[in-house]
């Protein structure tokens, strides 16, 4: 297909100078605020050569942090996906009292500071919290342990999939599901063969955003983690510790890996957008 629209639409008052100034400003901002810091991360990480770089990554504590981050991200994505589908399904396919309240609550984690999210869990599950003492008595540790980190991350990332799915599913309506029902499909068949394929791109998009946020979350996790090296340090926390210890090469090595993971997610997201914009998908 060829694009018939002209590359530059004639905007009112647009002169060559205006265009050049705007373009220069945009490029300068991107360069200064995005590319330069990113480049600095990699430059700093490699400042003592590849040997020191890999040494930083091979450190047992660093590897534990990488593993923990991947684990937390994987759990968050899975929980988020399940919750997002359930919430979006409930909101768009049924009418029930309190529906608008549910929609409002889905957005809560976006409006609450992550630090508060962390504190909520400390208040609930901490040694002096509401249900913490009972849990600790039964041998379940949440705060300063992996479950707390997972909970805090899940809280912070909860809206991502649901928020992608709700508008998509609202736009699609109930017609497809109803017609599948008349054709004799069961609830599960409708879900897996009709609904899920219809929203797969939106769901995947939400999952990628959720994944990016889960890997990078600092505030909420910082409150509940307790910073036990090799045990409850995620990558962002580990980077901070290394940095505070003036271990710049190791700090930036882990940071560069985290940045690479984020860039990879971003690339996937762009690829996804290219696919979904193609009408013959």
């Amino acid at each position: 297909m060829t694009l018939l629209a002209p590359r530059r639409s004639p905007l009112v008052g647009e002169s060559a100078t205006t265009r050049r100034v705007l373009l220069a400003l945009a490029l300068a901002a991107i360069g200064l605020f995005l590319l330069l810091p990113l480049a600095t991360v990699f430059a700093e990480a490699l400042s003592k050569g590849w040997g020191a770089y890999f040494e930083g990554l091979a450190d047992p504590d660093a590897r534990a942090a990488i593993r923990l981050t991947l684990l937390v991200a994987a759990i968050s994505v899975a929980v988020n996906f399940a919750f997002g589908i359930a919430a979006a399904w409930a909101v768009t396919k049924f009418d029930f009292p309190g529906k608008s309240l549910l929609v409002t609550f889905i957005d809560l984690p976006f409006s609450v500071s992550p630090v508060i999210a962390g504190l909520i869990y400390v208040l609930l599950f901490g040694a002096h919290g509401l249900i913490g003492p009972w849990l600790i008595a039964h041998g379940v540790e949440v705060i300063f342990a992996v479950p707390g980190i997972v909970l805090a991350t899940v809280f912070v990332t909860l809206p991502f999939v649901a928020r992608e799915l709700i508008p998509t599913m609202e736009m699609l309506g109930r017609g497809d599901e109803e017609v599948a029902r008349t054709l004799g499909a069961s609830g599960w068949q409708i879900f897996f063969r009709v609904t899920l394929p219809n929203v797969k791109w939106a769901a995947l998009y939400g999952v990628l955003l959720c994944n990016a946020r889960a890997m990078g979350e600092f505030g909420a996790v910082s409150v509940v983690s307790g910073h036990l090296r090799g045990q409850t340090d995620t990558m962002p926390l580990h980077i901070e510790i290394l940095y505070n210890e003036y271990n710049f090469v190791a700090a930036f090595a882990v940071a560069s890996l985290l940045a690479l993971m984020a860039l990879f997610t971003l690339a996937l997201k762009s690829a996804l957008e290219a696919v979904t914009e193609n009408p013959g998908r």
Partner: protein
Amino acid sequence: MRIDIVNAVKTFKGSERPAINGIDMTVGDGELVALLGPSGSGKTTLLRAIAGLETLEAGEIRFDGVNVAGRDTRDRNVGFVFQHYALFRTMTVLDNVGFGLSVRPRASRPSKAEIRARARELIRLVQLEGYEERFPAQLSGGQRQRVALARALAIDPAVLLLDEPFGALDAKVRKDLRRWLRELHDRTGHTTLFVTHDQEEALELADRVAVINAGRLEQIAPPAELYARPATPFVCEFLGSVNRLATPAGAVYVRAHEIELVPPGTPEARAAIVVAVRAAGPRVHVELELAEGGRVEAELLAEDFAATGFTAGSAVGAAIRRTHAF
């Protein structure tokens, strides 16, 4: 299969007026019946209730004499075609048509090859050979409608329910599909109910037309009878253009084409003045001011009007050939 609708009532939450309010009617085995009415009259709600997509609050729907109240949509074996087709956008035409067979319980599910063969057969029936591997987005409105119909026919439904099947199509395609649907029905013999707000469509296509207004059945009759002997003022006004005349005995209704223009002073004709003349293709709408008061519209062939020699401002006689009183 025969469908009996017995005193069906349905009120939507938050609405004071019932969407359907005590409808009684029967659709005979193999019959093609139109549900005709203005938008919001409850005809789609009735169709959805037959499919089990809405639950009645009172009354019954019986399939061959058996109340289906407790039967879920998926067990009713109805072929439902939605106004906007609701084709599965992620599936090819072939998979769309085969869907109903592919979701059957394992014991009664045909093999993959059999499903494909049956789907191909139906695609041929709706004249879409060569489009099997296309996606819905790559089809025109009329083609999508036919895929939706083939998909509904694939489950060998006991009844075919069509909700404004041609509503979203342009006039030419509507006409073609209408004729085609009639032929298809005559060939397959499915008991069919279709919803429309287009009187021409209903009168041309259906064996019987059920006129629905404000949740109630006004009349159900074959098209010719409906037109010749409307049972209520609503039916009379809804079909064709109608004049309402006040008489000492109450209101009577006169169809526009049942007013003839004659020279002024003709016995039995009412004195009138031609107020306006509007040409609409082969026909002319002539607006008349009656000497006794009130305006009526007459409709006649353009050449007939030209032969009378009347123009706007002429004094004429309006001979009323036929009236309907209730």
